[in-house]
C-alpha cells in the first residue's frame, strides 16, 4: 500500500516534469513549424495538421536574402567571435596563472572588478566608446568589436581561471621546476593540459556572449555587407506591409542554431562556467 503510494507520487512528479518541459518547448516548436511549412499552411495556426508540407524554401530565402544574406551574417559573426574568444582566453590564462601562483592579494580587487563589469550596462560606456572608435576610424571595422569584447570578457576570465589554477596541486609544478623547467614551460606543458575543462568553460561562455551580442554590434557596425548574424534578424523577412514569418523564423533558427549546438555538445562546461562565476564568485 505504502509502496503503491510512493510509486504514484513518483509517477505524478514525472508527468508534471515532462509536461513542463513540453510546455517550455512550445514557442520554439511554433517557430520551427513556421519555418518548415509554407505560409498558407501556418496561416490557420502552426498547430493544425490537416495538411502538412515540408519545405526548406524559407531557409533558402533567409540564407540567400537579396540584401541581408544570412550566409554572410554567419561568416561575419564567426570572424568576430573567434578572435574575441581566443584573445581574452590567451591573455586571461597567462594573467590568471600569474595571479594564482605569484600574487595572492589581487583576488578581492579582481573580484570587485568582475562584479562591477557584470553589473555595468553597456549603455553607460557606449557613447564615448562610439566617439573613440569614430576618431580611430574603427566604425565598420571588426577590430573595434573584437577589442571591446576582449576587454569586457577579460576580467571574469582571469578570475575564473585564477580560481581554477589555485586548485591545481602545486607539487607537480615544483617537481618540474626542480627538473629545470622554466615558468612558461611549466605553464604550457603542465598547467594548460590539466586545465582543459576550465578553458572549455571559458571558450563556451565567451563565444556565446559575443555571438549573441546585438547592442555593441548595432552601435559599431553599419555597413550592410558587414552586419553580424544577430543584426540581420531585424531585417530578414520584414516586408513593407507585412512580416514574412516563414523567412523570419527560418532566419532566427539559423542564427540561434550555433549557440544551441555548442550548448548541447558542451553543456557540462557551460553550466560549470555559469555556476562558477555567479554562485562561487
Amino acid at each position, binding site marked *: 500500500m505504502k509502496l503503491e503510494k510512493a510509486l504514484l507520487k513518483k509517477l505524478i512528479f514525472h508527468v508534471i516534469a515532462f509536461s513542463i518541459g513540453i510546455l517550455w518547448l512550445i514557442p520554439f516548436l511554433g517557430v520551427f513549424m513556421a519555418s518548415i511549412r509554407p505560409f498558407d499552411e501556418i*496561416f490557420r495556426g502552426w498547430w493544425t495538421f490537416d495538411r502538412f508540407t515540408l519545405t526548406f524554401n524559407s531557409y533558402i530565402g533567409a540564407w540567400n536574402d537579396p540584401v541581408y544574406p544570412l550566409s554572410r551574417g554567419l561568416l561575419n559573426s564567426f570572424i568576430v567571435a573567434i578572435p574575441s574568444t581566443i584573445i581574452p582566453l590567451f591573455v586571461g590564462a597567462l594573467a590568471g596563472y600569474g595571479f594564482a601562483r605569484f600574487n595572492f592579494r589581487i583576488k578581492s580587487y579582481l573580484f570587485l572588478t568582475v562584479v562591477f563589469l557584470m553589473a555595468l550596462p553597456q549603455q553607460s560606456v557606449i557613447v564615448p566608446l562610439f566617439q573613440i572608435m569614430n576618431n580611430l576610424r574603427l566604425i565598420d571595422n571588426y577590430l573595434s568589436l573584437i577589442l571591446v569584447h576582449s576587454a569586457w570578457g577579460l576580467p571574469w576570465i582571469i578570475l575564473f581561471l585564477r580560481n581554477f589554477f589555485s586548485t591545481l596541486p602545486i607539487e607537480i609544478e615544483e617537481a618540474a621546476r626542480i627538473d629545470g623547467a622554466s615558468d612558461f614551460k611549466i605553464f604550457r606543458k603542465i598547467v594548460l593540459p590539466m586545465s582543459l575543462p576550465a578553458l572549455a568553460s571559458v571558450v563556451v561562455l565567451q563565444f556565446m556572449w559575443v555571438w549573441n551580442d546585438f547592442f555593441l554590434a548595432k552601435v559599431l557596425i553599419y555597413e550592410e555587407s558587414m552586419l553580424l548574424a544577430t543584426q540581420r534578424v531585424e531585417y530578414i523577412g520584414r516586408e513593407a506591409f507585412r512580416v514574412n514569418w516563414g523567412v523570419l523564423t527560418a532566419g532566427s533558427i539559423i542564427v540561434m542554431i550555433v549557440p544551441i549546438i555548442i550548448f548541447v555538445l558542451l553543456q557540462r562546461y557551460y*553550466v560549470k562556467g555559469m555556476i562558477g562565476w555567479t554562485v562561487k564568485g
Partner: protein
Amino acid sequence: MLFLVIYPILQTLYLSFLSPSGEFVGMSNYNEVLNDPRMLNVAGFPKWPPLGALVHNAIWVLIHLPLSMFGGLALAIILRDVRGSSIVKSIIFLGMVTPLIVGGVILQFTFEERFGIITAIFNILGVEQLSKTWTAYPQTALFALIFGSVWLWTGFSMIVYSAGLATIPNEYYEAAKIDGAGPFKTFRRITFPLLRPLNVVVITMTILYDLKIFDIVYVATFGGPGRASTVLAFEMWRTAFRTLNFNEAAVIAMLLTILTMVVTIPLIRYTVRR
C-alpha cells in the same frame, strides 16, 4: 580595460553635465530627462502604459522577478528526483543560450494574432482583447515582453537552485522523514534555509537583467506602440543614436548605471563577508 571601460564611464558622466554645444549646464540635463514623459509619464498614471521607461522597468522587475525566481525554485525542486530530468532542464535552459534578439522574434510570434498560440488560446476562451497581436497594442505590449522574458530567463534561477540542492546532503531529508516531517515542513525547515544564500545571487542577477533589457524590446516592439513598452536601455540608445542627443543619452546612461550599482551592493557585501 582602462581605455575601454573606465575612461568611457567618466566621459559619460562628464557628457551628462554638458549641453549639446559643449557648455557646462550642471543638472539641467537631468532635470530635462526626469521631467520628460518618456521617462516618467505622470499624466498617464491611473491608466495603462505608456507610463515612462523608469516605471516600465519597475513593472518589469515586479512581475519578472517573483515569477522567474519562484518558478525556477519550484522547477529545481520538482526536477530534483525525476529521472531524465536533465533533458527537461536543458529545454528550460535553452532560453538562456538563445540570442535575445531571436528570443524577441519568438515571443513576438507566440503573441501574434494569427500565428501565435497564446492568442489562439485566448481566442478559444473568448477573451477578445487578449486574442489580438499583443505587441501591437499599448495595453498588452509591455506584458508580452515581460512574460516572454520570464520564459527566457527562468532557466537561470532553476540552474542556480539546482546546483544548491545538489549540495544538500540526503541525510538531512532522511532524518526529517524519520522525525515525521511532511514535505512542506521539510521545505520550510531544511531546503529553503539552506538555499537562502543563493537568493542574493538570483535576485541581483535577475534585477540586472531587467534593468539592462534591450534586444527583445528593440526587435519585438521597438519600444512601442507609441512609447508603451519603452525601457531605459532602449530609450538611451534611441536618444543617442536616433535623436543624436548624446548629452541626454548620457543622463539616461548614468541613471541606469546608478540603478545597477545600487542593486549590486548586496551581492558585493554578501560575497565579501564570506
